[in-house]
C-alpha cells in the first residue's frame, strides 16, 4: 500500500516535470519566437490586469490582421514591473517591446539595453514629428538619441468639488496661497471634512510633488551635468510647503500619511470628505465608480505660489521601448508605429484615460470639454519632465521615501522643520551619489 502511494507519487512527479518542460510558453524569450511574432509587456492601466487584456487584445488582433505579426501580450502589475524589467535587462532575455513609466526612461536608457530611436528607427514608426514636443521630451537624456517614445500621456490637475466651493462662496484658486486659504475655509475636522486629501504614504506621489513644488520655486534636483543638487533651498522650501498642508495649514488629515495606493484620496474626494485633490487625469473612472459624476467637479492647474513659476505638473505618462537584442526589430517597430498611430491613440484614450501624445490629436479621455481643455493645456504648456538623468530612478525612490518618513513624523505628532528636510535631502543625495 505504502509502496504504491510512493510509486504513484513518483509517476505524478515525473509527469509534472514532463508537463513543465513542455509549457515553455512563458513568453519571456525573444530568442525562441518565430519570425512572425513578438512579445509585448504592458503595465497595468485599467481596473484590473484582465481589464487591460480585454482592452488591448482587440487592437492587437487588428495589428496581426494588418501585418501578419502575432503579439504575445503579458500585462504586468506595478508591484512586479520594475523587477521584471530589470531582470530582463540584466539577462538580455526579455520581451521585444515593453512599456515603462516614462520617468524611468533615462535610467533604463543608461543600461544600454533598449534600442535607440535613431533617424531610421524613428521614420519606421512614423517620424518624430508626429509626437507632441512635450511628450517626446521624456524619451531619454537631453542631447542623446531617445530610447523610448511616448505612448500614453498624463498630467496632474487640481480637482475641486463644485458644490462645496459654491456653498462656501469660493472660486477655484489661482495661487498656492489662495488654495491653502480656501482649504482652511472648507476644512471641518469635527465633520471629518478636509480641504484636501493627499497620498502622503506613496513615495512616487511624494516624489512628484517634491519635483513640482521645487520647479514652481525655480529649483532643480540635478544640475546641467547630471549631478544631484537635492539640498538647494528651493527644494527644501518646496517640500516644506507640501508637508505644511498637513503640518501647519492643517487642511489635510493626518490619516493621509498612510495613503499609498493612489486610490484613497480619490475615494475621499468622491465621498465629499475632501474638497480638493491633486490627481492625474485618469481619476474619472475611479470617481465614477465611487459615485461622483463628472458634472460635480471641475479641474484647474495646480497653482504655484504668487511669486512662483507656472509649473502645474510633471510630464507624466507611459513610454514604449524596444529591446535592442530583439530578433524581430522590424516587427517591433511596426508595432510601436501601430500603438502610436492616431487610431490606436484615440481608441485607448478613453479606457486608459490618457492624454494623446500626438500633435493636434483630440483627447478622448473625458467627455467634459472643459476638463479636456484644461488637461491638454497643463500637459502641453505647464508641465516639465522629471529630471532626464540616469539617476532618476534612485532620486524617485530616495527622495520619495524620505518624504514618507517626514509625513509619518508629522502624522504621529512630531514636527518637521526646514533643517529636518535639509538633512533628509542630504542623506538622500548621498545615497543617490553612492549608488552611481
Amino acid at each position, binding site marked *: 500500500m505504502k509502496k504504491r502511494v510512493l510509486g504513484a507519487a513518483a509517476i505524478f512527479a515525473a509527469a509534472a516535470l514532463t508537463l513543465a518542460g513542455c509549457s515553455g510558453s512563458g513568453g519571456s524569450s525573444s530568442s525562441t519566437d518565430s519570425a512572425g511574432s513578438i512579445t509585448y509587456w504592458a503595465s497595468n492601466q485599467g481596473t484590473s490586469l484582465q481589464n487591460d487584456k480585454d482592452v488591448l487584445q482587440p487592437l492587437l488582433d487588428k495589428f496581426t490582421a494588418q501585418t501578419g505579426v502575432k503579439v504575445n501580450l503579458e500585462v504586468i502589475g506595478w508591484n512586479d514591473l520594475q523587477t521584471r524589467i530589470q531582470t530582463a535587462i540584466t539577462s538580455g532575455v526579455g520581451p521585444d517591446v515593453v512599456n515603462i513609466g516614462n520617468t524611468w526612461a533615462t535610467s533604463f536608457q543608461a543600461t544600454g539595453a533598449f534600442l535607440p530611436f535613431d533617424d531610421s528607427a524613428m521614420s519606421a514608426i512614423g517620424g518624430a514629428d508626429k509626437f507632441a514636443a512635450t511628450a517626446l521630451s521624456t524619451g531619454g537624456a537631453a542631447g542623446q538619441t531617445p530610447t523610448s517614445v511616448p505612448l500614453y500621456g498624463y498630467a496632474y490637475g487640481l480637482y475641486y468639488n463644485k458644490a462645496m466651493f459654491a456653498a462656501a462662496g469660493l472660486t477655484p484658486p489661482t495661487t498656492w496661497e489662495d488654495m491653502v486659504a480656501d482649504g482652511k475655509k472648507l476644512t471641518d475636522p469635527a465633520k471629518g471634512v478636509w480641504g484636501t486629501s493627499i497620498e502622503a504614504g506613496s513615495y512616487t506621489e511624494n516624489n512628484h510633488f517634491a519635483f513640482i513644488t521645487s520647479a514652481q520655486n525655480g529649483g532643480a534636483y540635478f544640475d546641467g551635468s547630471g549631478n544631484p543638487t537635492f539640498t538647494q533651498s528651493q527644494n527644501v522650501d518646496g517640500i516644506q510647503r507640501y508637508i505644511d498642508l498637513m503640518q501647519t495649514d492643517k487642511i489635510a488629515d493626518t*490619516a493621509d500619511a498612510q495613503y499609498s495606493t493612489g486610490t484613497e484620496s480619490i475615494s475621499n474626494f468622491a465621498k465629499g470628505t475632501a474638497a480638493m485633490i491633486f490627481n492625474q487625469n485618469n481619476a474619472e473612472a475611479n470617481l465614477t465608480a465611487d459615485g461622483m459624476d463628472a458634472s460635480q467637479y471641475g479641474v484647474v492647474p495646480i497653482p504655484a505660489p504668487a511669486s512662483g513659476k507656472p509649473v502645474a505638473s510633471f510630464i507624466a505618462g507611459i513610454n514604449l521601448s524596444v529591446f535592442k537584442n530583439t530578433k524581430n526589430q522590424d516587427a517591433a517597430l511596426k508595432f510601436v508605429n501601430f500603438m502610436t498611430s492616431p487610431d490606436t491613440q484615440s481608441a485607448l484614450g478613453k479606457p486608459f484615460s490618457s492624454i494623446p501624445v500626438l500633435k493636434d490629436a483630440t483627447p478622448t479621455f473625458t467627455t467634459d470639454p472643459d476638463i479636456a481643455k484644461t488637461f491638454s493645456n497643463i500637459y502641453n504648456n505647464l508641465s516639465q519632465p522629471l529630471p532626464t538623468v540616469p539617476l532618476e530612478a534612485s532620486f524617485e525612490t530616495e527622495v520619495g521615501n524620505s518624504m514618507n518618513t517626514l509625513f509619518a513624523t508629522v502624522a504621529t505628532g512630531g514636527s518637521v522643520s526646514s533643517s529636518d528636510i535639509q538633512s533628509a535631502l542630504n542623506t*538622500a543625495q548621498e545615497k543617490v551619489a553612492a549608488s552611481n
Partner: protein
Amino acid sequence: MVLTTEKPEVAPVGVASAPGAVKLPKKKRPKGWWLPFALIAPAIVFELLIHVIPMIVGIWMSFIKLTQFYIANWSAAPFVGFGNYQIALNFNGAQGQALLSSFLVTCGFTILVVGLAWGFGMAAAVALQKAFRGRAIFRTMFLIPYAVPMYAGIITWKFMFQQNTGVINQILGALHLIDPNNPPFWLIGNNAFVAMVVVAIWKLWPFAFLMLMAGLQTINEDLYEAASLDGAKPFRQWRNITLPGLGAVNNVLLLVLFLWTFNDFNTPFILFGGGEPPAGDLISFHIYNTSFITLNFGFGAAMSVLLLLFLMLVSAIYLVFINRRSRRA
C-alpha cells in the same frame, strides 16, 4: 523477562551478515562503495545548481561595479575590489548608516520575534501536554497560521492595522487604551516595528509550538509522576524535566528560528510594499530595495555577503556553545 532473553538473539543476526563482509578483502574497494555517493548525488546536483553556484556568482558580483550602466553588459563592469564593502561599512556615509540602522532594527526584531515565538510555542505545548477535554481542538487551531499561505496571513494583518478603518485600533479604542479620536498609526512611523513583530510572531510561533509539542512526546511520563510524588510544583517540573528533555529540540529550533527571522523578507515586503518606514526596514528588504529599486546590484551583493558572514559567525558561536554545554552535561 521474555524481552531480555530475546534481545541477545538479535545480536548474532547482525554478526551473521559477516559473510558478506568476509569477501571484501578480495577487491581494492569494498563492493558497492559508490552507493552512498549515488544516493546523495541528486541532492548535490540540485544544491549546486540552486544554492551553491548562484551563491558564488553572488559573491563575485559583490566585487564589481554592477550598476545600471553595466547590468546589460556585465563583462564591461569594472572590478572594484572591496569598494562596495567600503561603502557598506562606512558608517559615516549615508549608505553605511542606513545599513547599520537596518541591521540594528533586524537584530531587535529577531530577538523579540524568536524569543516570543518560542515562548508562545512553549507555553502552548506545556498547556496542552496533558490530556483534557478540548485539547485536540486547541492543538488544531494553533497550527492554522502555519498552514495559511504567508501572503494571505500578512495581507490580512495589513488590513487590520489600517489607522482609521482597522480592527486593531477599534479594539484598542474599546478597551480605552488609545484615544479613539486620534488613533495611532501602525504601518508608518515607529509603530511599524511593533506591527511587524506581531505579524512575524503570528506566523512563526505555530512552528515552534509544533516542534516543542513533538519534543514533549519523547519525554517519559514517569519522570513527572516521580517528581510530583516528590512534591515538585509544575514550574519546578518544567525547569527540571521538561526543559532538559527538550534540549535537543531547542538547540536546532532556536537556530532555525533565528536564521529564518533574520532573513525575513516577506513580512515587510507584504506589510509595507514600496515605501518602507525606517522602523520596518529589515535587512533582506533593505538589500532588495537597494538592488532592484536603485539598480545597484554590486552594492546589494556586498551587503548580502556581509549579512551571510554575520549569520555564519553567529551560527558558529552558537554551535560551539551548544557543543561545549552538551559535552559538559
